[in-house]
């Protein structure tokens, strides 16, 4: 039954992809990309990768769609005519596709327990999690502790991407960011203040979205979740507030300086936990020395670095959204 469902979802995925490629209307393409993310999140879930599914749904289908729409508001909704050299593009795509399809023949059978990926370090991670870290969610243990370097790298990628976007937007001549000169009163007509129903429902939901973000953040050791997902959910709550109440109010609640601090602070917190391990006489990012009991030390370390991840991701996503929105009001 699960196989039938997977094939059905994959078929939908292919159809969505063709629709994205075929459409000339960029607004339609953005919405279809959101649908694509949601479908692939469902497929990840069918493959028992709940953590990845949650990330894909929160970031791919949620925040990325909003950011794409923000970008569309600055540009245009219609694709410019493509280049004339269609045959060349087709040839390149055909060659690459056939190489990739040829490569799949060497793949182990789907779900094969003898596959190399299940034989290399995975058994050690599964056993080691119980012995060294003792939390139910192995994914969090692998991400946070065993492969802490990789996750640190990811956080710095997010951080660097955020800085890059902010630089790109500040390079153009434009009105000063409203953050540097907070307006004296709420600007009437900003956001959706005149639309009663979205505003009432949105205001009612925002606290619960924030609460759910905290749950995802701190429940990551026990179930699917963690800093990346929680950061995206937090950002979604703030973006919803900004859409409903207007940029000015959102920036008054969370000023741009605070957001920049969050962006850097999360990455710094992560690195500081690593350095603390060194100062206490072990390796960088070895959390075992953070407490008298190595297992408790690992758990403290994972909670701290997940908090760092969440802070940076939320800060970057909200800053990028504000950067788009500030351009829009030029």
């Amino acid at each position: 039954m699960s196989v039938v469902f997977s094939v059905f979802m994959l078929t939908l995925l292919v159809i969505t992809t063709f629709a994205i490629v075929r459409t000339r209307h960029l607004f339609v393409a953005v919405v279809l990309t959101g649908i694509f993310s949601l479908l692939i999140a469902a497929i990840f879930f069918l493959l028992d990768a709940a953590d990845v599914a949650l990330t894909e749904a929160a970031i791919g289908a949620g925040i990325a769609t909003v950011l794409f729409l923000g970008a569309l508001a600055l540009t245009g909704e219609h694709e410019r005519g493509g280049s004339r050299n269609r045959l060349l593009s087709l040839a390149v795509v055909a060659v690459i596709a056939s190489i990739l399809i040829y490569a799949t023949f060497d793949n182990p059978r789907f779900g094969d327990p003898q596959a190399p990926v299940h034989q290399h370090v995975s058994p050690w991670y599964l056993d080691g999690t119980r012995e060294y870290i003792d939390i139910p969610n192995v994914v969090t243990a692998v991400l946070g502790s065993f492969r802490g370097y990789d996750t640190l790298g990811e956080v710095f990628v997010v951080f660097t991407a955020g800085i890059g976007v902010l630089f790109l937007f500040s390079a153009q001549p434009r009105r000063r960011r409203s953050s540097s000169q907070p307006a004296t009163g709420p600007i009437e007509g900003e956001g959706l203040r005149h639309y009663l129903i979205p505003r009432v429902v949105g205001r009612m939901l925002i606290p619960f979205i924030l609460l759910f973000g905290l749950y995802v953040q701190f429940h990551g050791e026990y179930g699917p979740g963690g800093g990346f997902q929680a950061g995206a959910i937090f950002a979604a709550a703030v973006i919803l507030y900004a859409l409903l109440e207007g940029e000015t109010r959102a920036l008054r609640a969370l000023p741009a300086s605070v957001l920049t601090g969050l962006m850097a602070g999360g990455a710094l917190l992560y690195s500081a936990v690593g350095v603390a391990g060194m100062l206490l006489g072990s390796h960088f990012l070895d959390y075992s020395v953070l407490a008298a009991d190595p297992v408790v030390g690992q758990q403290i370390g994972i909670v701290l670095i997940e908090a760092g991840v969440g802070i940076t991701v939320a800060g970057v996503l909200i800053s990028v959204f504000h950067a788009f929105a500030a351009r829009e009001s030029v």
Partner: protein
Amino acid sequence: MTIDMLIDIGSWVLLSLGGFFVFVGGVGVLRMPNLYTRMHAASVTDTMGAILIIVGIMLQAGASLATVKLAAILLFLLLTSPTASNALASAALLAGLRPSESTAADTERHQ
């Protein structure tokens, strides 16, 4: 006939009915003449489809944490879906799509 079996039957009836309403909503979105009537069809999926399917799954889950989570999801859907429909409709009105005119325009385009 045990109580478990009754619950199971009830759950499957709800799930099938919910599936039917989702299907009807899908057909409506494809067949209706203009945006507002299409939204009306889609809202059948949001409300009747979602309620019946989630209650059906709740019966399957029994008295457990999963049921509480499903109830939270149902509450969330019942709050957000009509709001989204409302926002979509007012955005369409704001963009100048009049319900009566658009019907005429759509039929003209199809002919």
